[in-house]
């Protein structure tokens, strides 16, 4: 092989590697992105069913119900404007999960608009609501419930 041919082979191999990894990255990214929605958007029917999504909100007071025989449980995510989404889950809730506190749920929405959760996240910080959740709730026309100033609701 001449030096010129060698260089061409190197360039072709390099281009193949770049193209291959770009395709792989794009594909993997597309199938694993999860958008974060507020309860209001879910109720408005703007959220795809049976697709991995995240829903964030406040856990409604008194809404946590547990089965007597297994770990099955359900609770309601709400904003402060009466939009409510029911969540079902069958694993252990995180330590910071509490009623009237914020939580983000990852999972799929079924046709009855019930969220079947694969993962429940309550932030590893006792004081604040996650920034991204604050933003999403804020977008829905009303001020976000700010935990630090809120007394009752």
């Amino acid at each position, binding site marked *: 092989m001449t030096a010129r041919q060698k260089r061409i082979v190197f360039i072709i191999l390099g281009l193949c590697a770049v193209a291959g990894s770009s395709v*792989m990255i794009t594909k993997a990214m597309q199938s694993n992105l999860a958008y974060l929605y507020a309860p209001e958007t879910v109720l408005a029917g703007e959220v795809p069913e049976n697709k991995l999504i995240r829903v964030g909100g406040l856990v409604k007071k008194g809404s946590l119900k547990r089965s007597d025989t297994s770990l099955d449980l359900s609770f309601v995510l709400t904003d402060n404007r009466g939009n409510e989404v029911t969540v079902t889950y069958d694993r252990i809730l995180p330590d910071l999960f509490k009623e009237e506190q914020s939580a983000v749920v990852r999972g799929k929405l079924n046709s009855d608009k019930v969220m079947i959760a694969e993962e429940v996240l309550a932030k*590893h910080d006792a004081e604040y609501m996650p920034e991204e959740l604050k933003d999403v709730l804020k977008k829905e026309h009303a001020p976000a419930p700010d935990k630090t100033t809120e007394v009752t609701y």
Partner: protein
Amino acid sequence: MLPEIGHFALVLALVVAIVQSVFPILGAATNNAQWIALAKPTARAQLLCLIVSFACLTASFLISDFSVLYVASNSNTLMPTIYKVSAVWGAHEGSLLLWVLILAVWAYLVSVFSKGISAVMLARVLSVMGMIGVGFLLFTLMTSNPFERLFPIPLEGKTLNPLLQDPGLAIHPPMLYMGYVGFSVAFAFAIAAMLGGKLDAAWARWARPWTNIAWVFLTIGIALGSWWAYYELGWGGWWFWDPVENASLMPWLVGTALIHSLAVTEKRAAFKSWTVLLAIFAFSLSLLGTFLVRSGVLTSVHAFASDPERGLFILIFLILVVGSSLLLYAFRAPKLKSTGTFDLVSREMGLLVNNIALIAMTVTVLLGTLYPLFVDSLGGGKISVGPPYFNTLSIPLGAVLASAMGFGLFLRWKKDKPERVFSKVRWVLLVALVTAFLVPILLMDFFDIKAVLGVFLASWVSLTALLWVQEQGRSPFKLPLAVWGASIAHIGFAVMVAGITLTSVYSTEKDVRLVQGQNYEMSGYSFLFNGVKEIQGPNYIAQRGEIVVTRGSESIVTLHPEKRNYGQDTMPMTEAGIDGGFFRDLFVALGEPLGNDAWSVRIYHKPVVNWVWLGAALMSLGGLFAAFDKRYRRVRRREEKPVVQQPTKSDVKEAVA
């Protein structure tokens, strides 16, 4: 008084750092010997100032001086002494002080172990490190002074984040920082070499041991973090593709590529400009890591302290560092002619594949971590990228990397014949294939193609590494440390691959509801739940469960998972009960009380999970061996006395290694 001394020493360190970053480098440019000579004393004076400053802060913690805001926010009199010390770097301000202290330690070490380096080069290197120091000292003093006073003085302090009250995490940040900051040495060497306009094999040879040591610390730091997440977060996972974890993984991946690329630059005078670029990126990604963790731009399960203003400062600093070094690179790179040519089948090619795979992994992680931020800033909504994204991509890339690792060791520099290499490794290939099918069939519960792939790659990499040592044809005790280092590090990688694959495929994880006296069967083990009692710890109250594990009639172990409460509005902590072993871990953790003596309990059976960290430990050991190879010292001596030496046996060995 102590805090004032500490604060003063910190300001003094900044002044010294400014002198260190200005004069030696100007001296090198203008040939002013006196200015050049300032490099060593200023680097040492800076370390002294920072030691004084750090000691003052530590002392304030030990005597619980709550007039210092930082002490009052992160410590109280009830905390055990070890956590009072680790609380020094337990939050933002102190961890920055640790960062600059470690930078000064590295600069000091460079100034001590620099016998073979010309004074001009050393002046440039230390100046560049001084500049980084100036940036971080300014940052500390302007936005996050750890010595700020608090008035009125509280009687009792708050507490260190309970998550951090753990021996593993006490040493995790120093290790990680040693790694992050250690890459500043290779970075400074690269910049200095570009400034001098001489990018020959010499700079690569100097940078190699330093890069290795930094990489070793980073490996240990990441592994400790992962191990801690496993037993302390109570989820039983060891890697979450969390942005903060990714932030430390990226410099590691590029650092690994750098180690291999430096070898080519030193031995074969090829990859010259590429190596310089990697050195720049390894350190830039370390800075990016610091930025991501400290700025709060990321929603992470463990984004601790966060403050957008601080983030802005680091972002500007990051842009300055990356921008100026890339600019310098743009001017110098065209002059860097790689003289070493190589064929399609050659060791250079093997190392090129290694570099491409590692960089592709870095890009994958970088995109997955930053893409959500990017979309959000464009108003595209809040998205998160799930772990499957990272897993899907790292499996094929890891497979490419591992395949190349086996061949690479046997390839000759410059030009090799595929048949020659193949004839050496064909038996290994066969044995690895057979093992890959036998392990899942004979030792595991079920057959799985992913397990076959993982075991195959692990056996392939480890067996070729062993065969390679044997091929050297010398007594194992006479082999250069670098040979052992490479072999052990490769075996470590193999052990880790085996651990990751088998534990991912064969773990059984169940969350169950258990009433006192109830039994649960899993993977042949029986877990008997004996209820929960309340106990009092040194600075916490805990709910302590008792779970008796038996297998058939054989009693295995009694585990005591805990749910701890450290008071002061902190979150409850889950302390898992783990029976660790070489072949499997039994992991139990308490969930929450469900009423009527019932608790939710996590019960996991995780085969060979410890191999993940064992592999990391072996890799670190390998890196350490390679860094202390005696040829780095011998080269220094030779440069001191330019006497022509007879080629020794190890010179011949070098040509091979």
